[in-house]
């Protein structure tokens, strides 16, 4: 399947089973727009989604917020998004801010860093 995003820094691929996205590389101010569009492309999928993040090299705070906003939108549709393979330091940041309680968000098992 062709990636939804392919830049020098970021690749996002749609996944079918489970439905969702695989995010690889760097998310910063240069790529927020790409990530937002990729999330938008799966926003209408019914049921739960998974974002596979074990190959994320860098994700800034604004990028993390995009994921939280997406989770809340899932909750409004009575479904969830699972963040799988989130690097432990990002789990720490999510918890620090209190975003671990975001409606619609499920935090999957972390990968070692």
């Amino acid at each position: 399947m062709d990636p939804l995003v392919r830049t020098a820094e970021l690749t996002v691929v749609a996944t079918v089973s489970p439905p969702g996205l695989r995010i690889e590389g760097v998310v910063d101010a240069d790529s927020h727009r790409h990530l937002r569009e990729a999330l938008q492309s799966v926003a209408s999928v019914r049921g739960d989604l998974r974002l596979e993040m074990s190959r994320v090299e860098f994700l800034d705070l604004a990028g993390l917020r995009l994921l939280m906003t997406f989770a809340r939108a899932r909750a409004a549709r009575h479904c969830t998004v699972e963040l799988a393979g989130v690097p432990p330091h990002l789990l720490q940041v999510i918890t620090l801010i209190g975003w671990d309680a975001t409606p619609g968000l499920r935090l999957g098992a972390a990968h070692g860093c």
Partner: protein
Amino acid sequence: MAADRTGPAAFVHHACLYGSDAEFLAMAVPFVRDGLAAGEPVLAATTPANIELLREALGESAHHLDTAETAYFGRRPVERVSAFLRHHERRARPGRRTRMIAEPVWAGRSARQTAEWKRMESGLNVLLAGLPVWMVCPYDTRVVPNDVAEAALATHPVRLDGERQAPCASYADPAAYAAAVDGPAASCAPPSAACTGPTGDASVLRRLARERAAGAGLTGGRLALAELAAHEAAAYLLAAEGARVTLRAWEEPGAVVYELRRTEREGGRIGRDADVPPFAGYRPPGDAQGAEDGLWLARTLGDSLELRARGPETVLTLRVPGPGDAERL
């Protein structure tokens, strides 16, 4: 008590300088009792010894008092502000004020930490303004240094002795006070510091920040957090139109230091949005994206973060814990 006259909508910030257990209780017992009687949530964030005194004096009503050992209720100023805001969010009752006894730990602090806590005490008047909170900050004159006791009267508009309120004559405008607090002089980058910029590209700054942190011996999650803290600090500075930032990075015992110096673009003017508001980055991110969210994260992940305006330049100095920080080993 007379502070009731201010109504529930305004933030009320009192200092209580006490020199004995009896003086502490003369303030704390009526403050807590009146609050509980009015159906207001009441928190005592103070020393374990004071919490014990207070519980004994309150008897049965102590069951309704929220308590926190103060050293763990926000270890550093940015965490302290977050702790206050979160406590209020969780405990506030509609139409009622929340009361807090908030006694910071002053003993054993470094000069830099003491300066930062003094600034924060003043900053609370701005950061919590508009919140229906009545906060009393007790200062134990048996243990706090003189300069800290003096600062209490400059950072709180009113002092409370027992139930008697008196305005603090030396109360100072928070922004002016924070700018004037004596702290250690800003450290200069050593000649061996790594340097990049000026640039408007955050990823260039981030790469050097990571490289230096790795060179200092940080690995894994701690390396990633150092990189993220430096990135968010840089992104905050670069958000101003036309801004460019120079990064210098070096090691100190216990810390990796990042100095981020913002200048205007050559031949251009930096936007007016470049002004850094006093007490920027002390409030945790809310539901909507805020301009200071990243600065809050950098403050929270770092050991210290100082912002200074030097003429047309803004200098941000961020210290992240080094590999020998045993709290995080």
